[in-house]
């Protein structure tokens, strides 16, 4: 069972999560696109001047449309926040699908996946608040440690070294943010796999993390590190193609979407690993829910 929980066996579910993110991203992009369309959409070359080398038209538009750009940014932020909360449902669907398929059954189907995700949503929401708060506190601790470390050593070390020392002091807090993130995903996995409320799920996740801390954190870390590579690749392609249109724009769009999709795939791979990890800490000694068959 455990070995069967794999992201690659659930390509459609992973693609579904990709599609969900693409839809939300498109919605969030709409205010910017509408603004650009209104300003340059009727030009013979469309928005090409905005991408011209030197950025004169782009800066000019940002200045003249500052209010519109601010409104667009705020709207996009609101859509992203709402999309993030609502994103707990497709995340739950992915987790439910991976568990279900690992049990040797056929596809879970969207309605049942949605049902399972819906059932887990309250726990997910509570975990989001609790662990989000914890991560926020750890981040504040990182900031404070960096600031204090820099202030204490500035006189002796000078600015650059003091700031680097401060960053060193902040590293444990930054690591805490990461570990809390890992715990968050493990908790989600436990909540969905064992139908647990938030706090028991958190306890189960903690137990799983305690058993194999290095293996679990490493499993998250290498995937997180690897997920930066597609971003760098996308940036390199964008740097090469600039603001060209036509085929170059299509190539860039494909490169960017490939980058986004590969990040989702890495995330799904990690979530599958989280599901396997919490299996070792099963509070009810049940590896999967027979009702999922």
């Amino acid at each position, binding site marked *: 069972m455990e070995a069967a929980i794999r992201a690659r066996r659930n390509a459609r579910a992973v693609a579904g999560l990709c599609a969900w993110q693409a839809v939300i991203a498109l919605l*969030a992009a709409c205010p910017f696109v509408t603004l650009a369309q209104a300003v340059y959409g009727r030009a013979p*070359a469309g928005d090409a001047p905005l991408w011209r080398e030197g950025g*004169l038209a782009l*800066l000019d538009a940002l200045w003249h449309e500052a209010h519109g750009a601010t409104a667009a940014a705020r709207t996009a932020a609101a859509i992203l926040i709402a999309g993030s909360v609502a994103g707990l449902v497709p995340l739950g669907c992915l987790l439910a699908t991976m568990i279900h398929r690992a049990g040797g059954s056929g596809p879970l189907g969207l309605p049942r996946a949605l049902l399972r995700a819906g059932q887990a949503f309250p726990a997910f929401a509570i975990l989001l608040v609790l662990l989000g708060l914890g991560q926020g506190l750890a981040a504040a601790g990182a900031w404070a440690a960096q600031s204090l470390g820099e202030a204490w050593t500035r*006189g002796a070390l000078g600015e650059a070294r003091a700031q680097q020392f401060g960053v060193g002091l902040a590293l444990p807090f930054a690591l805490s943010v990461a570990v809390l993130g890992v715990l968050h995903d493990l908790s989600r996995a436990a909540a969905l796999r064992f139908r647990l409320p938030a706090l028991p799920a958190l306890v189960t996740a903690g137990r799983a993390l305690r058993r194999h801390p290095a293996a679990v954190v490493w499993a998250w870390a290498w995937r997180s590190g690897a997920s930066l590579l597609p971003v760098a690749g996308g*940036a390199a392609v*964008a740097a090469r193609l600039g603001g060209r*249109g036509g085929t170059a724009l299509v190539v860039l769009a494909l490169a960017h979407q490939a980058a986004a999709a590969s990040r989702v795939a890495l995330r799904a791979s990690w979530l599958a690993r989280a599901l396997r990890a919490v299996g070792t800490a099963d509070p009810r000694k049940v590896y999967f829910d027979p009702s999922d068959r």
Partner: protein
Amino acid sequence: MPSRFVVITALLTLGVEADPPPVAPGPPPAFDERLADHADDVADYSLRATLDPATHSIHGEGTIHLRNASAAPLRELWLHLYLNAFKDASSTFMRERVGGRGSEAPREWGRIDLRRLALRSATGARDLLPSVELHRPDETDETDARVPLPSEIAPGESVDLEVAFDDAMPSIVERTGYAGTFYMVGQWFPKLARLEPDGTWAHFPFHHLSEFYADFGTYDVTIDVPAGYVVGATGPVVERREEGGRVRERHVQADVHDFAWTAWDRWQTLEANVDEVDVKILYPRGFDAIARRDLAAVRFALPYDSLRYGRYPYRVLTVVHPEDAAREAGGMEYPTLITTTSPWWTPPSVRLPEIVTVHELGHQWFYGLVATNEAAWPFLDEGINQYAETDAMGAWLGSGSASSALGLSLSDAAIQAVAGDRGVHDEAVAQAASSFSSGADYARLVYSRTAALIATFAGVYGEDAVARALGDYTRRFRFRHPGPQELVDSFESVLGREASATLRGALFDKGWVDYAVDELRSDAGPAPDGSWSGSALVRRRGTLSFPVEVDLVAADGSTRRERWDGHGDWKRFAWHGRAALRGAVVDPEEQILVDQIRENNQGTVDGAGSGAPRVLERAAYYMELALQAVGP
């Protein structure tokens, strides 16, 4: 300043693009050989400065040699005691506080106390100190002191003034002061105001937005600091001794009109010879990479500016790069010594250290060598120099001269153009620094608007022509304190009367311009011979006029370029072609950087353009990344 870069750092470090090959500025004009070798010495200073880090104070003493180079006898002297700008909240500087650098009161106040001022003569020294008027009646500012003379100084006659003074350095504020054991020492000695040819003194208090104006002379200054301190100062070291736990460095520099120095027991040094000039970069520990970037900027800009504006005449150049915490000391110019700024972690794609270094280096010409009145006409130094900066940065780094990442390049010139647009209707560019309503308008108009204006002339009339006009101005008026008329005359001699009238209108009369594509018309179908007819109406709004290009775009994608001399309020371009007229673009090469609104520079006949596919693609991708970052 650098904090604004924190957010974009992560993005900009990705996808950094390679630097383009620098563009050579071409051979120097033939008349470079006729450059003035030396300035007309008027005020020579022989000073000794002793730093006491325990009290953050400097004791100074020495002699000022003044020659009455004017046509009138002198009955008074004016001394600038600018360190008193930081004496308390009642100084002109602190009361004005219109925003920008120096707007925060220093943590520790500073001041200059004149201990001795005596007129030396054959019979001894006559004490002038009791007669010094530190301030006017009903005025609390003590930065502009009047000194009545017991007897006239005839034209051509010289006198020696013995001076002694004590400086209490403020915590770092507006280019001067201390931060820990770091000292940036500017405006630190009693300095004669500029003696104009008619015998009047161009004197003024230290205004918040104002800089300086003084006569040329030779500065012979011995700086005495504790052992272990590294000194950087105007002019080369001609003598150095270390004894009794002190270091004494004597710096002598002719043909300059100010003297500044720095001392710190933590300076690191990077040295190189660039274009036969000994360049020294003073930087803090941990700033090695940034220091190399500073030096790279000097390596490009020093020979570039020398070719553009006449050779750099000094043997040395010192670049001071303070820590970010002392950035009030950064971004300032003194003769042969400039200060730059940027945090040690500035990513390579953000050209902040390069821009600041190139800018301050440019001041060696635009303030240093032409020595304009910075208080009365700040655009003559900051504005023209801002153009020199954007020109050099563009020649060096191309369209990504401000930043270049993710396929998006921002040029220094574009940033100045848009910033300059923001204040154009508020106030005139050409006015005294103290007349500006705010630091923001001062920055937008004096720096950015002037730079965009000169760049527009370069775009319209050609870079070579503008380089000739500016080169002629800087060479002819080297060491000669020109005013705005001399600049306008130089432009007129190269670009013609119409261009000089436009320049004057833009500088003095809040001149502006906006080109716009207005009505576009195309026949519904082709004529019997298969040709299409139509027209494009282009308007010129505002008070300035530049020749401009217009692209008429056909439905088959072909383009026909037209040129309009810019005269009149509008011009209608007729279209006859094998395909229907689809649209028009005015100023397609973005030559007119002062065009007020670029959004109306294009249009299509039916309003159906090509949309915003690039924005859609990028925005959607970046939103995906953002969602992945904040989402579950």
